[in-house]
């Protein structure tokens, strides 16, 4: 049966490769249309890969993307579209920053406390959308978009000096966190430090795979995503599954901002990265909701982000990277669906051919079963 496994790998790789190729070609067309070299920007960006400081930046940035994309992917696996990862991680990071600034426990307790705060905040925020969906039938897409807007306002409120805010010059912050909650990075010489919580991202990826593929819960979740009706008939309580998936997705989303919070900024300020939740959607799509695929996609995204500023020094607009990201998402959607259908049909044909040739499982070596014709 190895050939069907190989087949699956081929199909898994074909989608992204086609999408990336199409996106590169389309971006090249954009460059040509604006009267610029379609090749040089890429050469420049590839060159950036060779610099160790850029490598560190890419890895650090990718860890945020990776966690956010995992959160989105959990929803995707059961056809839930959690657009609210953005609001969830920002609110969670802020709450963690506030707790980190006000609580002062030994590091062994402080760090878990901060992680827990972030998880609970994220889960609470997505849970609102989950509860609305199962009790009132509100689409989680609408609810989470609204909750993103509300999260922005809540954050603005918490930033007020008489709430939790601390003004530093013109910047709103939540005050410096106690050092016991900092996580020191891995120094890589002059290149900087890799966030300690990059390992959290890796662990989450492993946990995601194990939970989905090796537990009963994961099976139910995947079944719900593959066929709501079949899952219900198999005994999955659809409402409970929606709520659980939303809570999980939000809980993971809550962690997305922590690598940078605990590893670098140590406060939640106006400079804190925004929009990672939305990028996570594209990354999860490109990574086909698989932990390994998402890792590659997150690194690719981070590379486009961190290598593109160099373009400004060579007369190109760094926005070409953003155009590229958009084009990738667009081509991904098209190419995956095409590859999926092509793969299904191809397998059906192959199975038909194998059966016709008498390769039936369970047939003895000397006797081949006759295949029933239709």
């Amino acid at each position, binding site marked *: *049966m190895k050939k*069907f*496994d190989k087949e699956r790998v081929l199909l898994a790789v074909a989608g992204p490769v086609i999408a990336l190729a199409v996106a590169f070609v389309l971006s090249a067309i954009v460059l040509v249309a604006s009267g610029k070299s379609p090749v040089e920007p890429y050469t420049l960006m590839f060159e950036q890969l060779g610099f160790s400081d850029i490598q560190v930046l890419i890895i650090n940035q990718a860890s945020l993307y990776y966690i956010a994309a995992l959160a989105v992917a959990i929803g995707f696996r059961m056809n839930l579209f959690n657009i609210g990862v953005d609001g969830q991680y920002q609110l969670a990071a802020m709450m963690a920053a506030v707790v980190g600034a006000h609580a002062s426990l030994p590091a062994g307790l402080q760090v878990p406390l901060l992680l827990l705060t972030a998880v609970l905040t994220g889960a609470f925020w997505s849970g609102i959308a989950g509860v609305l969906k199962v009790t009132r039938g509100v689409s989680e897409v609408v609810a989470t978009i609204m909750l993103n807007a509300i999260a922005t306002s809540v954050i603005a409120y918490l930033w007020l000096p008489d709430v939790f805010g601390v003004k530093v010059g013109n910047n709103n912050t939540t005050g410096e966190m106690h050092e016991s909650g900092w996580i020191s990075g891995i120094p890589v010489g002059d290149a900087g430090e890799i966030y300690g919580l990059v390992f959290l991202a890796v662990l989450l990826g492993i946990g995601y795979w194990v939970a989905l*593929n*090796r*537990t*009963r*819960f*994961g*099976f*139910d979740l*995947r*079944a719900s995503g*593959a*066929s709501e*009706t*079949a899952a*219900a*008939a*198999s*005994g*999955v*309580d659809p409402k409970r599954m929606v709520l659980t998936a939303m809570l999980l997705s939000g809980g993971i989303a809550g962690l997305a901002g922590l690598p940078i919070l605990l590893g670098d900024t140590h406060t939640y300020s106006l400079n804190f990265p925004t929009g990672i939740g939305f990028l996570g959607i594209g990354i999860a799509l490109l990574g086909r909701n698989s932990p390994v695929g998402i890792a590659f996609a997150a690194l690719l995204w981070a590379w486009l982000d961190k290598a593109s500023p160099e373009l400004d020094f060579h007369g190109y607009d760094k926005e070409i990277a953003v155009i590229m990201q958009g084009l990738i998402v667009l081509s991904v959607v098209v190419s995956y669906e095409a590859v999926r259908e092509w793969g*299904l*049909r191809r*397998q*059906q*044909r*192959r*199975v*038909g051919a*194998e*059966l016709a040739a008498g*390769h*039936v*499982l*369970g047939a003895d070596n000397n006797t081949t*079963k006759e*295949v*029933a014709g*239709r």
Partner: protein
Amino acid sequence: MCAIKASSSPPAGAAVNGQVTAVELAGITKRFPGVVANHDIHLTVRKGTVHALVGENGAGKSTLMKILYGMQKPDEGTIAVDGEQVTFSSPADAIVRGIGMVHQHFMLADNLTVLENVVLGSEKLYGIGAKARRKIKELSERYGLGVEPDRLVEELGVAARQRVEILKVLYRGARTLILDEPTAVLVPQEVDALFENLRELKSEGLSVIFISHKLGEVLSVADEITVIRRGTTVGTAVPAETTPKQLAEMMVGSELPTPETAESTVTDRPVITVDKLRLETAGGKALLDDISFTIHEGEILGIAGVEGNGQTELVDALIGLKHADTGTITLADEEITGWTTRKRREQGIGYIPEDRHRHGLLLEAPLWENRILGHVTEEPLAKGVWLNPKAAQQDTRRIVEAYDVRTPGIDVTAASLSGGNQQKLIVGREMSHKPRFLIAAHPTRGVDVGAQAAIWDHIREARREGLAVLLISADLDELIGLSDTLRVIYNGKLVADADPATITPEQLGSAMTGAATGHLEHDDTTPGTPNLSKSPESGEDEAR
């Protein structure tokens, strides 16, 4: 328009109505992966006739009509309209050739008037104003359709909507009408009215293709009948020379079990007891009412009925997808009315769903994952919260061998198997957990002959070991051949019961239309009309 090619067609124009061929399908073959397709179908519809196409559900009638209406392309075979070979790539092509279809589910916009609905999409024909209204009135009078152009569709009843659909098709110039199960939604009086309309149509020289699986109706309205079984045409018949029994036999074939069931294995230990079960729509209309029955160990209870009379709801209530509004369900001696689907499955209710693609399989998942579906909490598939893929794969291999699932391996997706093999996998899966009670809804629908016999054997085998089975089927011979007890469901109620040892398909068929209630007994003097020996509910059931 090009000239008619007369070479292969019968002498054109020379013959009167009823002799000229309107539509001829020859050697039509259509393959789909995983489902019964059409195979070498031949169908000749003469002008000015009602031609019935009968066959069980899943026999391939709808696929054939989709091909004729241009919604699907045949892999092989030819279509000829008025003696001229044609190929359709869309319904628009079919309409140009005078072929129109009235779908089972109406395609009307509720908030538009009849006139607006009729002209929608065909504004170029007669405009949208007075000319169109005149045309509609003219058609309505000519064929006795009684359609009022200015009524809002939402005000119309089902029968009137159907007439609007028919008029829509005529308005577009159809000379051959395909009616897909037109009577499924109608009450008996409306059916009679519809048949009057059809007679008008054919007297005007139009042809009607009438798709149905109700033999009584077919015999009363059709001039000719083509029977389709397992995707291929098995013969044609003329109503005057055919009895319902002969037709039924053609429909279901002769490879069916003779109703001589093996010795009874029924015991007196009840497994499942349903008491006064009632299920309502959100609006309070009863979908199921006063359903009571008991199935004992080793007993197969067959439920006969025209589709849509509450069978689906009954299955949903038993497996826990819908919860009873009143009444109780008891498994052995535990009341399970409030149990979830998962608990019911864990406690020994097996489920072969009516629609295996929607409820029985994850089509894009490998076979071994489909083995887990529905039994994710049970041994050997799980240990605590953990899945055991190794054990699942091993057990899938066992099922594949024991149930003769034809597949090159257990890693292929369920979608790549044929319908029969998918069904054998489901049967094997459900039987693997030693159910006490099995819900078998149309267990052999769309399944090839070999698989059908195998599935029957498995069910019989399990029955011998004490399994209680609720069998729902549209195939009357399957019901009669397998069941120990028969009940008839009509309008959400169990209206009649019968002894499968003596009942005939015709008697059962007439009870399914609500024409007979109570205990049905065989009576040789009046075949086809069941004897009413006791009819506790006949008062509330209007017989035709």
